[in-house]
């Protein structure tokens, strides 16, 4: 092959590739229809959650607050502002739960402000569960400062999803939810369970590393290394109940996890919000139509 032929064929190949890759990036907004028809409801009550896992985050209170604020801004339903229901306590009082001995309420630090009743109720729930275990967990003393300070920790016994099972019968208690529905003028009720557990894993991971060649040019190369990592797993189950009938309309399970370098210290609460951020769009898409923005490539 002569040099001229080679050059010609290279030019032809370049022209061919350029011709084939005629593309245009275009922004799109994909409308997502809600999974649930909530047109019959004007109001939504995020009642509360049965929560377990780490003691560092009050899954019940934080989830309730977050969902209420998200629904307030991103759905057409009116959000009912009320105290978080002490679901743990209710579940232990209704048939279907293993017998629970409720210890007298311990002297707890006085909580004030908006969290007062929520804290008290949740605390009562917690103590009820502790009674079941007969031993008071020294770890479960209320913590000092921070956003979690006014609320108690979760019962020590609820450490994994299995521990939540004895309480889940509450969600099928039609009479209870119907009563709640009547109290709040037949809203859509959002409730469920939240497990937020610490997690650690070690193994080979791929990460990107900056390298500079002899000419000082920067390159990013993938490097495989052994790493000890720790983080959290968030497993919420959202249950949607018809406040008019007390029946479950829909329920959804989620699982998200995050892992950090073992020597990195990330507060549990910030990990909780990071994980909730990931699944909030899915939660919202159950109730209201959402538009997901993205970019695609049109080809010619």
């Amino acid at each position, binding site marked *: 092959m002569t040099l001229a032929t080679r050059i010609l064929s290279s030019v032809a190949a370049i022209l061919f590739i350029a011709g084939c*890759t005629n*593309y*245009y990036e*275009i922004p*799109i*907004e*994909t*409308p*997502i*229809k809600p*999974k*649930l*028809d909530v047109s*019959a409801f004007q109001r939504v009550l995020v009642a509360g959650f049965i929560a377990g896992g780490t003691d560092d985050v009050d899954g019940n209170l934080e989830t309730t607050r977050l969902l209420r604020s998200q629904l307030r801004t991103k759905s057409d339903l009116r959000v009912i502002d009320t105290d978080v229901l002490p679901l743990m306590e209710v579940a232990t009082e209704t048939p279907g739960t293993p017998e629970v001995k409720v210890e007298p309420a311990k002297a707890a630090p006085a909580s004030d402000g908006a969290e007062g009743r929520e804290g008290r109720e949740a605390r009562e729930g917690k103590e009820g569960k502790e009674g079941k275990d007969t031993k008071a967990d020294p770890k479960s003393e209320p913590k000092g400062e921070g956003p979690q300070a006014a609320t108690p920790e979760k019962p020590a016994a609820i450490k994994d999803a299995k521990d939540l099972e004895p309480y889940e019968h509450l*969600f*099928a208690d039609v009479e209870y939810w119907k009563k709640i529905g009547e109290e709040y003028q037949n809203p859509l009720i959002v409730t469920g369970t939240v497990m937020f557990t610490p997690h650690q894993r070690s193994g080979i991971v791929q990460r990107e590393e900056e390298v500079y060649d002899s000419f000082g040019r920067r390159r990013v190369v993938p490097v495989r290394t052994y790493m000890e990592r720790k983080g959290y797993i968030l497993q919420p189950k959202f*249950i949607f109940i*018809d406040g*008019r*009938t007390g*029946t*479950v*309309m*829909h*329920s*959804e*399970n989620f699982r998200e996890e995050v892992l950090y370098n073992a020597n990195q210290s990330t507060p549990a609460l910030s990990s909780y919000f990071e994980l909730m951020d990931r699944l909030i*769009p*899915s939660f919202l*898409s159950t109730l209201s139509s959402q538009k*997901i923005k*993205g970019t*695609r*490539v*049109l*080809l*010619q």
Partner: protein
Amino acid sequence: MRTRVLTVFLLLGATAAPLAADARSDAKKQVEFGITVAQRGLWREAIYRWERAAQIDPKYAEAYNDLAIAYEHEGDLEKARVAYEKALELEPNNALIKQNYELFKEINDRTTRKDTPDDPGNQNP
């Protein structure tokens, strides 16, 4: 006799190639126009153009890719899936179609996610 048959085949072959090229060229014009209108936000018109393109040249993967994007934009995820799959069937190694499809799947999986069997129920009121 053999020569005649051969001549007929040669003639057919000679005319079929330009016909296919014409079909592609016509379809390309439709796709091009569809892109122009889609960029101005006229997605319905774009869908019409790309559907025409796919009719004219059913082997034109790019037309199906664009059609899939338009369906996605309109919220018709099932039609979008079918169109993406057709585009990939025609051009399985096209990285740009693959990339579009992956992004689409992420959204589609989210909306069609099945609940776990232990769920109490999923009934609308």
